[in-house]
């Protein structure tokens, strides 16, 4: 990058500008060879312009990202005073109480939800893409069809699945009935509620996974597939030994992004179960919402401490992602 330019150099290059008064493209090109040299307008004006262009973004980031992070740390060490303002210093007690069973359950639900969304989602998307990739007709039609759920917002998907999950008139229990099977309390039993939430989320996210992996398949060089065919690798063998290994980076990206998304999953829980029954679908994000916004008395302090845990989890995921991408996932 730019060296720390001492003023004399800048002045010198300014003078050089003055000498080459009728600037030609040749001198402009030559000047670009020297990183510290200025363009026709002079470095100071260019620097000011650059900061001017960056300013709108920086202001938003400072006000709504950096300052909030600091304030979250502050709030996490405070409890409500008698008029409900989060101003009573409580030290690290919000973090200490995390080692009790209640928060452990929230983390367990979060982990189960993440697993139940990421694993079936990645396997499902991979299966669809491998089938699509086997040179069938109407490939484009099929891919578009599988991507269609991507259009559905978390709210619309949740509302539709709420209709499906209705115990007395929903299509899922209707199907079970016609198959001669027992009825299921999809959203009201502690065993099923989280599974139902996962099912909704997997449906919502499938299109995204298909898009990511299909783009990966598209970037596999033709020569690789031709060579594989010459060596007699077709069908499942080609998928296992060639396509899946070469999809490594995209699969990895998909898994990390889905994990981050699952950690932030909120709307489907809010609409379908409100975290219940008896906390069986209360994930970390839902717990943050519940503490801070759900009831009349807001516990911003406790919620902020939990928000820091969420932040830490997402940061770990991103760090893993960057770390692995640096070392490359496949052999190219």
């Amino acid at each position, binding site marked *: 990058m*730019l060296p720390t330019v001492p003023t004399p150099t800048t002045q010198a290059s300014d003078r050089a500008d003055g000498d080459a008064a009728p600037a030609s493209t040749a001198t402009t090109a030559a000047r670009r060879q020297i990183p510290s040299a200025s363009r026709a307008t002079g470095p100071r004006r260019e620097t000011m312009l650059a900061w001017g262009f960056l300013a709108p973004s920086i202001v938003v980031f400072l006000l709504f990202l950096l300052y909030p992070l600091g304030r979250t740390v502050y709030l996490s060490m405070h409890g409500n005073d008698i008029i409900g303002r989060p101003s009573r210093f409580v030290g690290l007690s919000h973090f200490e109480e995390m080692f009790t069973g209640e928060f452990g359950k929230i983390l367990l639900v979060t982990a189960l939800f993440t697993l139940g969304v990421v694993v079936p989602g990645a396997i499902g998307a991979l299966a669809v893409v491998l089938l699509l990739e086997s040179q069938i007709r109407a490939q484009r039609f099929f891919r578009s069809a599988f991507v269609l759920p991507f259009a559905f917002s978390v709210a619309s998907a*949740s509302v539709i699945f709420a209709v499906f999950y209705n115990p007395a008139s929903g299509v899922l229990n209707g199907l079970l009935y016609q198959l001669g099977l027992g009825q299921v309390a999809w959203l009201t039993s502690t065993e099923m509620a989280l599974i139902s939430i996962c099912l909704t989320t997997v449906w919502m996210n499938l299109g995204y996974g298909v898009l990511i992996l299909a783009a990966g398949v598209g970037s596999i060089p033709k020569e690789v597939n031709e060579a594989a065919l010459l060596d007699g690798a077709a069908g499942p063998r080609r998928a296992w030994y060639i396509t899946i290994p070469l999809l490594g980076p995209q699969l990895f990206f998909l898994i990390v992004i889905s994990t981050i998304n699952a950690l932030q999953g909120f709307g489907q829980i809010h609409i379908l179960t409100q975290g219940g029954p008896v906390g069986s679908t209360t994930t970390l994000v839902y717990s943050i919402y519940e503490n801070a916004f759900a009831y009349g008395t807001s516990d911003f302090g406790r919620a902020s401490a939990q928000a820091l845990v969420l932040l830490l989890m997402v940061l770990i995921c991103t760090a893993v992602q960057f770390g692995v991408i640096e070392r490359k996932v496949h052999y190219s």
Partner: protein
Amino acid sequence: MRTTLGRVLIYAVLLLALIPVLFPVYYVFAGTFMEPRELSTFPPQLIPTGFHLDNIQRVLDAVPLMRMYGNSIVMAGIITVAQLATSVLAAYAFVFLKFRGSAVVFALFLSTLMVPAEATFIPNYLTISGWGMHNSYLGLVLPFLAYAFGTFLLRQSFKQFPLELRDAARVDGMGHLRFLWTILLPLNKPALSAVGVYVFISSWNMYFWPLIMTRTTEMQTLQIGLNSLKNAESANPGLWLAGAALSVLPTLALVIFGQRFIVRGLTAGAVK
């Protein structure tokens, strides 16, 4: 090599897999056109007996759905335009302007992407409520006026622009802003569309922030309206489906007709 049987098998599996994927898409529209009693039969009926418009009519009476539609359009529209503007300017600075610390600032921009929005919602809620902007359009959009993802994507695209052409324009006395507006942006329409479509869909679908930022039904976005609808009309699933069907039309159109832009936006980070 490949047998006919194998090919038939692949089609069969694909079609079978499509049933659970497409059934909800079908059912939201089928259910919208059913009569209330058709939706409460057991085992459930899958095909409407006709195009009954009762659900659509009644959903418009139950909640101010058109007003909510407008709120969503205003919110997603402002966020999209603002993010495009802030991203274009920032990306221009990173690619075409030389200034000390450019690499460091860019790294800082990228690091903002690692922060989950949910971790900032409590202080942002307090800040914006403190400014008296709770339950307002400004409150809905303020934290999302800039987002480094757009800057990142546009920077990639701007870097393709031949510097010689830029220098030629500058030598001809063209200022930065005029160059940006008349030459650079028209040549980067695909990237701008990708960012625009991506930002529009994600802000149209936002749930957590509009939920805590709105108090009255008049200010709710469509997504929050769907939840209100479900609570207010808990015995009428037909109304929920009608609301969901209406709310999904714009994004469905974007996914069907603008898929290449979506693919470009989504896969920018995945394919290196």
